[in-house]
């Protein structure tokens, strides 16, 4: 077990190294010029050239990559070209809204999707099942910004129940925090709910055919007990796996959701940085997202033993 954990952790190092090289070289060949953006509209070409030199953008690839990796290992992601603030600090400023949005979406999606999938599997073929499956397909088919605008229109502008936009830090109270996150989480959660509900249904259907479930039924166990205790526990591995894989989609969706609901999170930071060619920020954020993704999936791998005692490493 311990050896396996160590091996899994070591295996993430080359992955991160590849992400680092990829992210760095991707932006190295980018055509946009941050110096030109900084200089502003009234600047002359000579001004642009001088700013470029002062930012060190005119040095060779290997030199810049080497320096960059060395600094990252020391936990220094560099300074933003535009704000002159440390990238780590900019990320720190933005992490709470994104993390909150992710967590609320995740909790929401799981609490809705898993029972949905279980019921659909249990009543497989019924109207409920078809509705659940229909919703699941629909969830994949409607883009997140369309859902976002619809929700904002109905629940914020027409009904005036919830705020249209923005983010309230959790330190200002749980309710104000949550209030601001409901609409974005629902908009963002759609695809995720669909994904988890489908996988839950498929897995549960398979498991409900298994002998031990029949045995449990034969022994007279209650339907709820069978579904949620015996079956769901055994369905946990694929469900948890899909939650981990779906995380990448969630991060991507957050980029759009944050822009629709004006949430000052990492997604918006990334888009702004890419549109503005703020290299250090883009590199830092993509590295961070990849790291989180790798980390979460590592934890999920390791968690399999909890759900399924048959899995041993």
């Amino acid at each position, binding site marked *: 077990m311990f050896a396996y954990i160590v091996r899994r952790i070591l295996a993430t190092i*080359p*992955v*991160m*190294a*590849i*992400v680092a090289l*990829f*992210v760095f070289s*991707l932006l190295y*060949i*980018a*055509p*946009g010029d941050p110096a030109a953006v900084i200089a502003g509209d009234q600047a002359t070409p000579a001004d642009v050239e001088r700013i470029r030199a002062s930012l060190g953008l005119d040095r060779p690839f290997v030199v810049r990559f080497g320096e960059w990796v060395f600094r990252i290992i020391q936990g220094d992601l560099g300074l933003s070209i535009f704000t002159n603030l440390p990238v780590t600090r900019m990320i720190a400023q933005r992490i709470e809204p994104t993390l909150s949005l992710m967590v609320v979406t995740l909790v929401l999606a799981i609490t809705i999707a898993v029972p949905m999938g279980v019921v659909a599997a*249990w*009543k497989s*073929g*019924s109207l409920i099942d078809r509705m659940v499956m229909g919703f699941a*397909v*629909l969830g*994949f*088919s*409607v*883009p997140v*910004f*369309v859902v976002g*605008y619809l929700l904002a*229109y109905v629940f914020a*502008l027409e009904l005036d129940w919830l705020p249209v936009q923005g983010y309230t830090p959790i330190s200002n109270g749980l309710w104000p925090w949550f209030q601001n996150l409901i609409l974005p989480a629902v908009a963002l959660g759609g695809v995720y709910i669909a994904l988890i509900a489908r996988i839950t249904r*498929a897995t549960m*259907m*398979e498991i409900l*055919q298994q002998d031990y479930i*029949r045995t449990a*039924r*034969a*022994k*007279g*166990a*209650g*339907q*709820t007990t069978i579904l949620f205790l015996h079956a769901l526990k055994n369905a946990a591995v694929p469900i948890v796996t899909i939650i981990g894989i779906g995380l*990448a*989609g969630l*991060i*991507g*969706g957050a*980029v*759009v959701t944050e*822009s629709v609901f004006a949430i000052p999170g990492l997604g918006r930071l*990334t*888009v702004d940085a*890419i*549109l503005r*060619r703020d290299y250090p920020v*883009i590199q830092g954020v*993509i590295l961070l*997202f*990849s790291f989180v*993704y*790798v980390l979460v999936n590592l934890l999920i791998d390791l968690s399999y033993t909890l759900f399924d005692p048959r899995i041993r490493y």
Partner: protein
Amino acid sequence: MSTTFPSGGAPAAAPVMPDVMPTRIARKGITGYIFRNPTIAIGGFLLLLLIFVAVFAPFLWTKDPTALAPAMRTRAPSERWWFGTDMLGRDVYSRVLYGTRVSLIVGFGVAFFASVIGLTIGLISGFVRWADSIIMRVMDGLMSIPSILLAIALMALTRGSVGNVILAITVAEIPRVSRLVRGVVLSLREQPYVEAAIASGTRTPVIIWRHILPNTLAPMIVQATYICASAMIAEAILSFIGAGTPPIIPSWGNIMAEGRALWQVKPYIVFFPAIFLSITVLAVNLVGDGLRDSLDPRLAKRV
């Protein structure tokens, strides 16, 4: 499959399973196929309709989708402009119909290229031992970058064109296909008949052609439909953020991106392309679900 539950369970559960039975009535020919696979039939019909719209857009009472008429901007849907006009006075109906082309090209293009490239990489990875770990690490690395972010970053490198959109989304999708193919190859290699073929000295290309490809095809086709659907959404998102198809080409993402600021006052500019996009993605997903159920032997056995 079990048709009845033991009577010990909750009473509501018992009659559920047999309900699906009537769809199993055996029929021959196309009608039979449709009855057995209603999702494929519905999805396929919608998809054919959309392909028809895309191909024959110029003949479906459309105008030049790029012709400006600033004096006629933001007109509501009416007899003259079925879906209204946008802020440059262009006819939204014509733009939406022509937009079908972009979405379908991007969807099918990405599905095709991601499948072909992913298949190649997956085969190499499954057969060439020394390359496997390198390739898979690279794929893990790519996969750990959220695909939309990866596509945005790639689009920031190049100029907006339909080709580049396809390329950017394809790159983000390749790892999934290649992992799938590699998984199939590795499991097939363990099969006695493949082992026997290898042992008897059959050349690798022949093994691939005879044993591997036929077995990879089914899961790949299913995977390809999902890639097609998600590529269409990705195209819309890229265009929506302003990093996608060039705006002079009417695509649903572009129409929505241009109309987004006005969703409160002129909702129809966003509404019509959104409906079309959703229906198209829905159609592709339905086909995918249907194919999965009829092609995936493991799942097919049960229904």
